[in-house]
């Protein structure tokens, strides 16, 4: 006979605990509300900015609470976990959610470039908020099935965004994007079914408790399926082909949003499921993870070097970043996980900014292929500085933000090198990746900005004629500059970030505090 107080939460949730669920609720409700007023002139933009600012405020207070008190959890429907569905946030989840909301805010302002004369029937702002809700939900959830649902929310919103406009090019990209991502979530669901059959629970903290006593071979099979599913979502080699085939087809603003948020959610899901939830299975999969990381690190920048389409080339940088995160997952010390986590945080902001700067280049030149660009430096020095700074940040050149997580990863790799080939191989791959990314990025910069004119044209000495900036382009430029400034400042004063990252990584490597926050500590499996 179960006593009611054992199965139910009988105290009311304190008002302060609502910060955990508010970001998701605000974004979902905002999305619905903006759909109602989508035809009005100014309301959608104003509403979207207000909602995102509110989401950011909630997430900052959530993050501050987690910094002072440790992981935070809230369980729906008054059923105690593992029966109720838990939302649970630790430092990584809340930090990534905050970075995602900031990136979305900048993208919403930036998107005004393409919205001249748009009557709002496409429901753009509504879908952006829905995407934000899906991403935030994925970062804050404490339940695997709930994670699946947020993945689908994210997928349907991103499909809506990728096809809006409906040009043949977009339809072509959307077919590939849609099929591959739907397949990935179906594989994830397959792994969920097996997990439930084996363990009888889908609550992340509960799985951490019962997985060690389950059949090890079966758990490793599940972990391998999760690796395939989330690897597809994150665009890790060899299941990365959908990303360069689709990310350049929508408008630059939508591309930027996807590059910043979607693949990082896949990478975060890998971090959470393999390192925190199934550490034993991760250990068995470590050689696979390391090989995938090395292949992704080395092959992605080669793709960028071979590409002439500017946005497609930048897509390969996104894939290369996923390689760095996978490298962190293969080095599961606190330092390595901190490196992977800070890299995700950096990539959310820097990749969004890079795509937006590339979008500005496309708008000002009216071209999308680097062969038709040249000599932009003389025409717009600020644009070329932004692009160059971001290339350095992505490649990981000090003192920019991308350098610090890679330094942590190298440190973890060197420490791991005594134990086997994984550490030393990853160190070599990370360095090769940094060099190749730098080559690819500076080549793009030289071709677009530095050489005298487009390919095949005699150097006339005149700067390339640019489309004059409209007020909307100026607004977009301001928004991107602010984001880049933030990335640069965080790179110059990285200590708080590294400190928080290491504390967050400690909670992932030893999830005792997390399990305790969900309320399952001390319960015998």
């Amino acid at each position, binding site marked *: 006979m179960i006593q009611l107080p054992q199965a139910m939460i009988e105290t009311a949730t304190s008002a302060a605990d609502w910060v955990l669920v508010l970001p998701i609720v605000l974004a979902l409700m905002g999305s619905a509300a903006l759909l109602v007023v989508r035809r009005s002139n100014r309301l959608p933009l104003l509403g979207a900015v207000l909602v995102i600012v509110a989401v950011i405020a909630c997430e900052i207070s959530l993050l501050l609470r987690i910094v002072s008190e440790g992981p935070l959890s809230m369980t729906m429907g008054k059923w105690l976990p593992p029966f109720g569905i838990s939302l649970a946030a630790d430092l990584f989840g809340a930090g990534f959610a905050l970075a995602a909301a900031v990136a979305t805010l900048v993208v919403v302002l930036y998107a005004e470039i393409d919205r001249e004369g748009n009557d709002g029937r496409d429901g753009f702002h509504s879908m952006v908020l829905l995407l934000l809700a899906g991403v935030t939900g994925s970062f804050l959830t404490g339940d695997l099935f709930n994670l699946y649902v947020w993945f689908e929310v994210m997928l349907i919103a991103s499909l809506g965004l990728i096809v809006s406009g409906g040009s043949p090019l977009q339809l*072509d990209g959307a077919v590939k994007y849609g*099929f591959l991502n739907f397949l990935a979530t179906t594989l994830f669901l397959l792994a969920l079914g097996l997990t439930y059959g084996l363990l009888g629970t889908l609550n992340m903290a509960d799985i951490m408790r019962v997985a060690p006593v389950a059949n090890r071979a079966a758990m490793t099979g599940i972990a391998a399926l999760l690796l395939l599913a989330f690897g597809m979502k994150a665009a890790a080699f060899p299941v990365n082909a959908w990303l360069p085939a689709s990310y350049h087809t929508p408008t630059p603003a939508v591309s930027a949003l996807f590059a910043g948020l979607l693949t990082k959610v896949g990478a975060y899901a890998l971090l959470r499921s393999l390192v925190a939830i199934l550490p034993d299975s991760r250990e068995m999969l470590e050689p696979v993870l390391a090989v995938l990381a090395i292949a992704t690190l080395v092959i992605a920048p080669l793709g960028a070097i071979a590409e*002439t389409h500017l946005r497609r080339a930048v897509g390969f940088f996104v894939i290369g970043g996923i390689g760095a995160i996978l490298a962190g997952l293969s080095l599961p010390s606190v330092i390595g996980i901190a490196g992977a986590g800070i890299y995700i945080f950096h990539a959310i902001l820097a990749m969004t900014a890079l795509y937006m700067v590339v979008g500005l280049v496309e708008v000002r030149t009216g071209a999308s292929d680097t062969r038709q660009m040249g000599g932009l430096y003389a025409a717009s020095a600020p644009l070329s500085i932004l692009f160059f700074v971001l290339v350095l940040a992505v490649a990981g050149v000090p003192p920019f933000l991308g350098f610090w997580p890679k330094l942590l990863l190298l440190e973890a790799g060197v420490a791991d090198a005594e134990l086997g080939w994984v550490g030393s191989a990853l160190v070599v791959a990370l360095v090769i990746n940094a060099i190749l990314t730098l080559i690819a990025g500076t080549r793009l910069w030289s071709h677009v900005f530095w050489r005298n004119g487009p390919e095949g044209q005699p150097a006339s000495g005149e700067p390339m004629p640019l489309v004059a900036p409209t007020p909307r382009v100026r607004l977009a430029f301001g928004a991107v500059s602010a984001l880049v400034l933030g990335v640069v400042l965080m790179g110059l004063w990285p200590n708080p970030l590294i400190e928080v990252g290491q504390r967050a990584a400690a909670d992932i490597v030893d999830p005792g505090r997390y399990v305790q926050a969900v309320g399952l500590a001390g319960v015998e499996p």
Partner: protein
Amino acid sequence: MDYVLAALVGVFVSLGIYLLLSRSVIRMLIGMTILGNGVNLLIFTAGRVTREVAPIVPGGLDVPAGPIANPLPQALILTAIVIGFSMFSFLLVLAFRAYKSLDADNTDTMRLAEPENAPQPPLSY
């Protein structure tokens, strides 16, 4: 019964994957649906197939009187069916639009976003 269902899941998943390997978008779409249904069946089987009764708590009691069927897998499948169906409808419309504007049902000829014979990277610098 479990063994029959497990074998059926295997048939569904292999059929789905076989169809997904096709070049025709419509065949891929049907493969996706069959794969999705195989996964739903898997969750159903994973929740243990029993002859127990529906999980209804009689009046006056806090817990059911006897053994009950597990309601959770059915809730999971219901969610997955709804999501899978909506994704299927979206992808069907997308495939139809792509067919109309690209005049292609074959993935080999859908090369607009990734042109064949892509230009060589520039040799300068």
